[in-house]
């Protein structure tokens, strides 16, 4: 048995070969990527296969795709929803019907205006940001805190298995609303929706087992002060 045939019969060869497509599309975890790098360096079969997969991936990516205008399709979807609501005996609210009739012209006009404003703001902002960046470090330390969204009073993490309805029910009960999140770490920023004190909202949150973490981020009030 030659050296190369020994390599190609090894378990490592078979496992690495199965990972090649995801090496090609650059989605492998670093550990697996290094494993593929090391194996491909000694395995002629995998090198050939890798070259073939790269060509296939490039050819697929290079094939022209047609772009369609989505607006007409969306209108048909909305019409289906209307028909479904009617057959279920719950016609869409009047505001929705008026919106459907008038929305498209207004929506397009608003979109064009919004794009124009956004472009103007971006151009203006671009120079301001360039200037500001020159005076800022281009890194953030692990210990530096993320900027607090305006109005945030509590940060919370929920169980990954929580449904949206359960999440909304808990937030309604605690009289809170989401102002941003979830972050990559699953953290939501919450703002108060009422005059309920932050402490009371926090207590209501914490009584649920699906709330993994909840802490206030607004300053604690002075003793005797209201929230």
């Amino acid at each position: 048995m030659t050296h190369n045939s020994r390599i190609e019969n090894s378990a490592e060869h078979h496992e690495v070969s199965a990972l090649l497509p995801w090496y090609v599309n650059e989605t492998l975890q670093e550990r697996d990527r290094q494993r593929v790098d090391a194996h491909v360096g000694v395995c002629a079969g995998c090198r050939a296969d890798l070259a073939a997969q790269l060509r296939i991936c490039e050819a697929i990516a290079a094939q022209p795709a047609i772009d369609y205008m989505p607006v007409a399709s969306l209108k048909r979807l909305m019409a289906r929803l209307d028909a479904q609501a009617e057959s279920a005996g719950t016609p869409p609210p009047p505001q929705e019907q008026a919106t459907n009739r008038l929305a498209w012209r207004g929506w397009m006009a608003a979109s064009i205006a919004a794009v124009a404003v956004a472009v103007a703001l971006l151009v203006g902002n671009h120079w301001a940001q360039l200037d500001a960046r020159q005076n800022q470090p281009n890194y953030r330390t692990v210990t530096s805190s993320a900027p607090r969204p305006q109005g945030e009073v509590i940060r919370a993490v929920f169980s990954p298995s929580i449904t949206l309805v359960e999440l909304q029910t808990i937030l309604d009960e605690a009289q809170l609303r989401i102002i941003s999140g979830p972050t990559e770490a699953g953290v939501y920023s919450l703002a108060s929706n009422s005059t309920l004190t932050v402490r009371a909202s926090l207590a209501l949150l914490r009584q649920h087992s699906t709330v993994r973490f909840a802490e206030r981020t607004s300053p604690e009030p002075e003793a005797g002060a209201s929230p």
Partner: protein
Amino acid sequence: MILPVKNSPKERDSALLLAISAGDRRALEELYLSYHRRLARFLSRFTPRYENVEEIINDTFMVVWQSAKDFRNASQVSTWIIGIAYRTALKSFRRQKNHTGARSLEDYPEQTVDPTFDEEVSDWLKHGLSRLPMEQRLTLELAYQMGHSLEEIAAITDCPVGTVKARMFHAREKLRQYLPTLGGAPSDLSARIG
């Protein structure tokens, strides 16, 4: 319903889905418009007729509208939506296959080509892909056209990672059989992962 501040596509999608679960049609429109291009480009590679593409996308978003309240944060919204589109597309393509009598690569065992130029590679690929079994082709396209990771494809297709690897392996082997000069070295992986 006031939508939360959107700091990233992931956060924006979660916020929109939350609004959709509360019956907000504007949120559904926004989510639809943000996914339409990606889904249409993906699906149009399987069917030349836009009516079919639109039907699959709209069926997908009907499910999104009806099931938003059941979404669990254990997966990403994008993976969830593409998973619904995958299953909807698979059903639709199977229906079409029954109507048109489409064949798979096994029906063309002797048909191999030897392209020298890139245009021929592209032409070969188009034909080779069209003859793969649908699950194998979808897996290949999810990886190479849409750039999904192994784990994401497992979530989208609701299959174990090993099944995704096996489908990809068989797709590669069949393409190799169809075009030996492009296909790389033969492999006996099927015995290990099939």
